[in-house]
Each structure stands twice: as structure tokens, then as C-alpha cells.
């Protein structure tokens, strides 16, 4: 069988070009992060990593991700179920709403939250009377991260569930399955990998979010500084190695994310082939 672009010359040229461009455009920046982190050897790297503020930044970043991911996971599943399994007025509008975080620049997102929950905002002034501080503390940073990352799970699920249709679920209901059993036994196995992929994306973005979090952080060292903010702070402290140490940590998380995703995809493909 012959396919377009199968001529050995075309093939070689295109693969080489793609590899070259990717190397220049993606691999070199990635490599340079690690190069700069280890520029002065292993000792400064470890020293920077064990810095108290860096450790606290890691903890805060993990906390934000740990709260954000489950919240958006639950929301994403409900939303996807709603818009793919039912037809009701306003469905298209709801789907556009979920795209708002993609349309709003993260800085604007942070600003909106600040204007609402800050001391001068109408909700914020009520909260501050009740002595509740959301902004410039970790709850506010969690809130904006939830905002910024909420479309990822839903966006992964909706096209898939749409394509799958609801015939299986309807059959199960006719057989008398209840809501939870239906979801767990029929739907979940079909969307599992898309769900995991959505979680991975949400997690990566929650760890790496910069613009929105910076707006509501107040950058109190050791308290409200996340890892990406720590990168910038150290960078401005004449501590390039320190900055790139934190950056390397974030890049390492990114690489792990990519590997996990790659393994998952490979897994899905294999399953796909087996079932086909």
C-alpha cells in the first residue's frame, strides 16, 4: 500500500526537520534550565533546594494542587455529564461559560478576584468584618487556581462522552442500575483515561500558575510564595542558580507529567487495539 509522503527522501527530510525544530524550540530551553541549575555543581543545587523558603514554597504549591485537582475533577465530571447526557435550554451558553478562564488572561482573573474578595470589594468587606481573610493567604491562591484550571477536565471529557453517546447508560438504566452504580460501572471505565489526562493537565497548570496567583499572593516569603513565584523572587535576588534550581524542580515535574501522560496514551492505544 502506498501513502502520501512515503517516499524515503520526503520522509527523511520531514522527520529531520521536525526533530531539528523541536530540538531548537523545545529541547534547548528545557536543557538550559537544568544546565543553569547545575552550573555551579551539585552542592549549590542541594543547598538551594534545602533553603527554608524554597521548601515552604514547595509545600504551598503542593497544597494548592491537592485542593484544586479534586474540586475541578468533581466539577468537570458533573459538567460533562450534564452537557453530554441531557439536552436543555442554555446548554451551549454553559459550554461557553466554561471557556471563560481560557479567554481571561490570568492577570485579569487575579484582578477580578482581588476586586471581589479584597478589603474594598463588596464580598471582601463582609468577609473582613467576619475576620475571614481570603486574599493574600493560601485560600485566595487556591480560589484563583481553581478558576484558571477549571476547564481542563471538562474539556477532555466532553468531546469523548459526546462521541461515545449515551446508549450504554440508557441500557443500564433500563436494566435497573442506580445513579452511582451506573456511573461507576458503565461510564467511568469508558472515560477513565480522558479523566486521568484531564487531571494531569489540571495538576500541571495548578503547580505552574503564575499570573493569577501573583496578583493575590502578596508575596510574603515563607507564607504565600509558590514555586513559580519563588523562581522570580530568587531571580531578582542575584541568585540565578537558586532561581533555576526551583525552575528545574518545576521542569522536572513537567517532564514527569509528560512521561506519565505518554505511558497512559500508550496504554490506551494498546487497549484500543485489543478491543478493535
Amino acid at each position, binding site marked *: 500500500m502506498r501513502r502520501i509522503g512515503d517516499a524515503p527522501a520526503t520522509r527523511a527530510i520531514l522527520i529531520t526537520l521536525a526533530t531539528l525544530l523541536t530540538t531548537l524550540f523545545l529541547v534547548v530551553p*528545557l536543557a538550559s534550565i537544568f544546565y543553569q541549575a547545575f552550573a555551579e555543581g551539585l552542592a549549590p543545587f542541594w543547598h538551594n533546594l534545602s533553603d527554608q523558603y524554597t521548601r515552604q514554597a514547595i509545600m504551598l504549591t503542593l497544597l494548592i494542587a491537592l485542593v484544586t485537582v479534586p474540586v475541578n475533577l468533581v466539577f468537570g465530571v458533573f459538567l460533562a455529564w450534564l452537557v453530554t447526557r441531557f439536552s436543555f435550554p442554555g446548554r451551549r451558553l454553559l459550554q461557553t461559560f466554561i471557556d471563560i478562564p481560557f479567554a481571561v488572561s490570568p492577570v485579569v482573573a487575579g484582578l477580578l478576584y482581588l476586586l471581589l474578595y479584597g478589603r474594598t470589594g463588596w464580598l471582601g468587606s463582609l468577609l473582613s468584618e467576619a475576620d475571614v481573610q481570603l486574599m493574600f493567604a493560601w485560600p485566595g491562591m487556591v480560589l484563583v487556581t481553581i478558576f484558571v484550571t477549571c476547564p481542563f477536565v471538562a474539556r477532555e471529557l466532553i468531546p469523548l462522552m459526546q462521541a461515545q453517546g449515551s446508549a450504554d447508560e440508557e441500557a443500564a438504566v433500563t436494566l435497573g442500575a442506580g445513579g452511582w452504580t*451506573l456511573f461507576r460501572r458503565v461510564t467511568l471505565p469508558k472515560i477513565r483515561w480522558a479523566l486521568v489526562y484531564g487531571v494531569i493537565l489540571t495538576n500541571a497548570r495548578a503547580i505552574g500558575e503564575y499570573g493569577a496567583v501573583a496578583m493575590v499572593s502578596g508575596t510574603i516569603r515563607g507564607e504565600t510564595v509558590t514555586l513559580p513565584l519563588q523562581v522570580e523572587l530568587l531571580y531578582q535576588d542575584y541568585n540565578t542558580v537558586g532561581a533555576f534550581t526551583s525552575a528545574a524542580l518545576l521542569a522536572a515535574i513537567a517532564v514527569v507529567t509528560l512521561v506519565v501522560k505518554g505511558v497512559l496514551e500508550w496504554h490506551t492505544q494498546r487497549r484500543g487495539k485489543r478491543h478493535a
Partner: protein
Amino acid sequence: MRARVLPGFTLSLGVTLLFVSLILLLPMTSLVGQLAGLSWSQYWAAITDPRLLASYRVTLLAAATASLFNALFGLLLAWVLARYAFPGKRVLDALMDLPFALPTAVAGITLATLYSRNGAIGALLAPYGIEIAYSWLGIALAMAFTSVPFVVRTVQPVLEDLPTRTDEAALTLGASNFYAFRRVIWPHIRPAVITGTGLSFARSLGEFGAVIFIAGNMPYETEVVSLMLATRLEEYDYAGAAAIASVVMLVSLLLLLAINLWQGRFYRRLHGGSFPG
């Protein structure tokens, strides 16, 4: 409307509406609140300041360049990844998602380090008079980097799903490779290419974290809209900032809406309109 056989409508509607109102819509009220304080003429003046107009131009130009680059780069990579088997393919494939996984601020600092006059890549280009960091090219570079995955990831699945017989038919008729690609493959992937490019463009318009480290921030030359917004805040002018934010939001939302509608049409065409997409 069909009968609701499936359970969970009320529950999922309730959860979704609660979440959408609290997380997404409530903060929007503060934007409206700020804008309500402006008269139409004040609003118009706030969004048509000459320096701001220049920053629209810079942002649009850089975002267009970035998404055009991504269209070509993405098409090439999607083709190579979908059509060929070669060693290292899995790594190349995984790398495509790197810009989404890497925090934008890290990307910005790294790109500025690499592409400035004394950086590893910048030093190679400097003798030829090519300056990337601190010029609008740098802005375009940062935007392109952060939105790489959009085109690749929308085109790749479409290419993978194309049946082999499409190619064969064209080639047995004696068409050249290029002609066959243009006449047979391109019509199939065009919607995906346009969707991906559109998403990449929308993302680029709002990009701040990566851009701010590599933009020269020169008035009328390398100031992006996000920076103008930050400047308004610096002047304690929340209404002015909100006005700029509203313009950016409107453009991006319209773009996304257009993409959604286009996708819907495309989807219906592919699947015969069986589901109200």
C-alpha cells in the same frame, strides 16, 4: 427534547450551576461594577488611548506571527507523528506537551536568557543583526512557545483517523505527492488546522507570564496589552484596567465562540448530525 432517561440531571445541574456562579460568574460582577463607574465617553477614551492602540497592534501582530508559526510547525509535527514510525518518536510526541506543563514564568526567564544578545542562541544571531529578546520577535517567540500544543494536538488525531484508501486513491490516479496532499488530505485537516491556530491565537493574546520577561516594554514598540493593564493598576486606576480587561476578554470570547460554532458545524458534518453538537 428527548425524555430524560438517565439519572442525575438535577444533581449535576445543581453542582454545575453552583460552581459556575461562584467560581466563574461572581468574579465577573466586579468587572461589571468597575465598568459601571465609567460613562461611555470615558470608557471609549480609556480603550482608545494612542499608546494602548499601539499595544493592541504589537500584541495582535506578535500573536498572529506566533500562531502562524505554530500552524506550520504544528502541521509538520502532526504529520510526522501521525504518519511515520521512527526511533525517538515517542519522545518527540511527549515533548509537544512541554509548554503546557512548564510554568510560563519559567519559560519566559529561560527564553530571555537564551535569546538575549549574550545568550547561547542570541549570541549566534547577533552578528547577523537579528535581535530576538526585547524586540517584538521575542514577544512572538514567547507566545509561540506557550501555545505550541494547540495545532499539533488538534490536527494529529484527525490525521491518524484518515483511512489509508484516501491516499491510495489519489496516488493510483497518478497525482504527485504535493498535489495529492493539497487536494485529498488538506480538505480533511483544514478545519482542525484553523481551530488549532485560532486557539493558539486566543491563548497568545492573554499571555503575560512568559512575555513580560522577554518584552522590551518600550512605549509604542514592545508594550503588550497586559502590561498596559498592569500600568493602569500602578496608577490606582481600576476602572481603566477593567476597561482594557473587558476589551481583551471580549475579543478572546468572540474568538472562542467562533471556534466552538465552527467545531460544531465540522462535527455535525463528520458525524451526520446524530447528536446535537
